């Protein structure tokens, strides 16, 4: 009977770096998860802002002041990129799940598209917000 041998096998994500060259495919995939978790934090900030607005003038002043500060706007800008990146990363999963682009070359092109697309959408959004 085969025995389970926990702990003797390498854990794949942690191989990147010392044992394994970082690739576009793995890094872009890991970033989808990280940006997803960042967006959980962003959602907390937005809901805190909504809840404060629904609660009282003073609560709104505190949260709104924090989000409108230089640090707040920086955090929101990074959060914006993360949300767009996650959305495009999930679009790649949808494309894969429907059976398309299931090869390394296409996946790498989509990875570059996710970086470029998220950056472009962030710049466009910040530009529109600044102009309007």
């Amino acid at each position, binding site marked *: 009977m085969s025995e389970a041998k926990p702990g003797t096998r390498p854990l794949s994500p942690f191989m990147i770096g010392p044992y394994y060259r970082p690739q576009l495919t793995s890094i872009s995939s890991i970033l989808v*998860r990280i940006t997803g978790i960042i967006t*959980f934090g962003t*959602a907390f900030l*937005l809901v805190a802002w909504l809840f404060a*607005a629904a609660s009282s003038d003073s609560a709104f002043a505190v949260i709104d002041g924090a989000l*409108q500060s230089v640090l707040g706007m920086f955090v929101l800008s990074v959060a914006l990129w993360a949300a767009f990146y*996650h*959305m495009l990363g999930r679009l790649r999963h949808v494309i894969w799940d429907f059976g398309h682009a299931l090869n390394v070359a296409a996946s790498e092109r989509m990875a570059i598209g996710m970086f470029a697309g998220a950056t472009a959408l962030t710049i466009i959004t910040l530009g529109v917000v600044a102009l309007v």
Partner: protein
Amino acid sequence: MRYLTDRKRVTGLGASRAGTQHHWQMLVSSILLMGAIPVVVITFAAVLGGNHAEVLAFFNRPLIALVTMLSLTAVIWHVMQESIEAIEDYVHGIKGKLSLIAVRVFGYGLIAAAVLAVLRMAL
């Protein structure tokens, strides 16, 4: 020799029965994200920067209130699942179980808070 039953050796290693449903739910949730993220971005880009009275007036419109609640719910549910998957991958045992409870309390709490706040301003 350590004796492991077949059942014990596979416990915690992955899906049985519910895997297809989870995969399908994530596909649906990912498709919803394509609409929900732009809607949340446009909504908050439009309303952030206003004073308190302007914010209250903004959400005091049924269509905007409805769209905000639906899109925020879709986004929060999706990123809650992302976090649950990360915990299932990296945190195990009692710590993992408690983390899964905590992240669901946080996620569903966030959805409830968003809905309550928007409804209060809309009604």
